[in-house]
């Protein structure tokens, strides 16, 4: 056990460049997927809060996407988009949609009806209602969704290497195929570390935005 730890540490020090480049790729894949899911999921979430029919359909779709096992998802998609980053990004953002759509929609739907009535009664046009009232008030929920889905994306991105995309999964993949346990562990640890850091940083950000006015 101690040997393993020592060997992992040796890998980090000797092959620093290798791990840094994997880390860079991992961050890139995750960031692109998170951004897509954030804006797409947010937009769908807003639409869901406006219209029950849209909500029923979209929630069914994103729930379905969420439940596809990742291996199957990657496997099917390879047939269409081939091997590489594109496939990985599509799968990762598809998974991330559910928490974004759900939280955005819930955040907007749960706004105090009195507040909505005051806004309407004072002559707020639809777009101003969204920007000035609904999105800011749903922000705590939206940021929670962002945090959950970011952690999930960073963790799941470890599998991207299996479809030929880069990222820390490459170290795990290589470790498994060459019976190099330390290599696999080194990759896994970095992924876990990355996920926890993002959770922590986004957590701080979330508090900063909302602690003053929300109880």
């Amino acid at each position, binding site marked *: 056990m101690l040997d393993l730890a020592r060997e992992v540490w040796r890998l980090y020090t000797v092959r620093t460049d290798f791990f840094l480049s994997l880390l860079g790729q991992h961050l890139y894949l995750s960031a692109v997927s998170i951004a897509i899911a954030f804006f797409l999921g947010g937009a769908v979430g807003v639409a869901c809060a406006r219209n029950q029919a849209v909500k029923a359909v979209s929630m069914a779709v994103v729930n379905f996407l969420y439940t596809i096992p990742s291996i199957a998802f990657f496997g099917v998609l390879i047939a269409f988009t081939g091997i590489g980053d594109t496939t990985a990004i599509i799968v990762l953002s598809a998974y991330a949609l559910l928490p974004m759509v759900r939280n955005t929609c819930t955040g907007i739907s749960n706004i105090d009806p*009195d507040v909505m009535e*005051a*806004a309407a*009664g004072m*002559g707020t046009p639809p777009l*101003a209602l969204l920007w000035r009232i609904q999105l800011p008030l749903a922000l705590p929920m939206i940021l929670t969704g962002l945090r959950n889905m970011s952690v999930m994306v960073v963790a799941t991105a470890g599998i991207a290497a299996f479809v030929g995309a880069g990222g820390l999964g490459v170290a795990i993949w290589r470790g498994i195929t060459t019976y190099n346990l330390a290599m696999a562990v080194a990759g896994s640890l970095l992924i876990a570390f990355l996920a926890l850091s993002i959770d922590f940083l986004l957590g701080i950000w979330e508090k900063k935005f909302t602690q003053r*006015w*929300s109880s």
Partner: protein
Amino acid sequence: MKNLAGAAGEPPPIIFREVTAAYGAEPVLDSFSLEVLPGEILTVIGHSGCGKTTSLKLINGLARAQSGSVTVFGQEVGALGPKQLIALRRRIGYVIQGVGLFPHLTVWKNITYVLDLLREEREQSRQKALSLLGLVGLEPELLRRFPRELSGGQRQRVGLARALAFSPRLLLMDEPFGAVDGITRAQLQRLLLGLHRDLRPTIYFITHDIGEALALGDRVLVMRRGRIEQLGPPAEIRERPASDYVRQLTDTIIYKK
């Protein structure tokens, strides 16, 4: 009878003509006809569920009439398009049942909400917020607080300041002095009467409290099951109740004393 102010010849700012309104099968308002006079405080009273809030929402178009018409500032509310409705609402000060301050905005930004929609310049908006705070009897320090950092009475004052921000000629107030203690309530009532004396807006004021209705109203409208039971100056309501229902209402104050 108190003087019903308002320039001679000015048309009534609100006219209900034979209005029927319903959410389900039961009508909530039933052939409801009323002219609110310019510059008056009309207090509206009646049991919970008799249609007070609904009548108010017909004025700013948050509710729709099934038949009949509601005319505000000479415009028929039911016939207005979305843009015109927004324009109309920006001319009407609105204090809702339960205050409804925006929790994510400071007192300042709450007060100047409508002005900000119209993109009023920052320093001007701050000055305005400050003078409105003074008008409703709050300290300038409160400007940067959030609603949850205020007491119930302070919130209601901010709600009033927000409704007054664009110097509306018409105020709709739905139980604005609800959940506060008696002393605070009396202060708020005095405040409102003072503001009314100085600015002379027309006020449609809903209340549960017959004492408040009689004290504030130039005229009092007693509603019962979506209909007008009696409409008249406070003295008339007190001395010549049109029905047992009205008599019972006014009797409750005598028991209190």
